[in-house]
């Protein structure tokens, strides 16, 4: 039976099979964004490392910092979902294990991204009261 199927038919469901371009482009675009955002975040963390709660909340109350932090979370969780997917697809051969890990990876990244961005927005939108 397997010999009747075309090479494309056999490849379907086993990998990218003509759907890899979106993954490739998204991986690169998020990578370029993350180069800039990570450098910004590292510089900011140097300034915040010895700060307390109030200084951190005041820092995140700035719209520029809040927007960049939210974008960092968005790009990072997207990028790591794509990267971990590649690693799972490369090293896990068993379909059941691979599927569970791929779905788990998607859930972790979406949940992590949603929680991080929501937390950032909460601080950004409520800390006016804290800073006064």
């Amino acid at each position, binding site marked *: 039976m397997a010999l009747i199927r075309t090479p494309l038919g056999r490849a379907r469901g086993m990998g990218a099979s003509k759907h890899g371009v979106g993954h490739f482009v998204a991986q690169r675009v998020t990578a370029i964004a993350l*180069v800039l955002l990570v450098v910004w975040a590292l510089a900011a963390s140097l300034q915040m490392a010895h700060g307390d709660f109030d200084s951190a909340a005041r820092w995140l109350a700035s719209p520029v910092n809040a927007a960049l932090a939210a974008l960092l979370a968005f790009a990072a969780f997207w990028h790591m979902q794509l990267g971990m997917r590649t690693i799972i697809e490369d090293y896990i051969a068993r379909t059941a294990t691979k599927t569970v890990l791929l779905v788990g990876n998607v859930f972790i990244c979406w949940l992590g991204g949603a929680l991080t961005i929501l937390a950032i927005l909460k601080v950004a939108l409520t800390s006016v009261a804290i800073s006064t």
Partner: protein
Amino acid sequence: MADASRAIRPRPKSPSVQLGGAIWRWHVTMAASILHRLAGMGLYVGALIFMLWALSLASGAGAYGRFTQIIGSPPGKVVLFALTLGVFYHVSNGVRHLFWDAGVGFQPKTASTTAWLVIAIAIVATLAFWSVLFMEGAL
């Protein structure tokens, strides 16, 4: 003869699979590639720590205090040090990959040189980062 031509030959295998990978000679470009994936997996955890930072900040001063206490403890600092090494490496080597995507830097000699370069950048930048933290009195 007819039988031999009809028999299905074993499919060719990737060199990394043959002999359990033993036919690969160690090379810095190989190490750079493995380190990129290892650092990426480490940064997966790093992103979740970033999430905990935001969540604790959103939960109030008490939660934020507990968060900074944990990441400021000696084991927490070891994890953060490893993460800074990982982030500097993954970002530098990521830029190296972006140059490759543009078709630049594929000469074997260039690829080896840039592999050593990104490893050196990661180490130097990590030490510089923690030196600044130390001088700030944040450690």
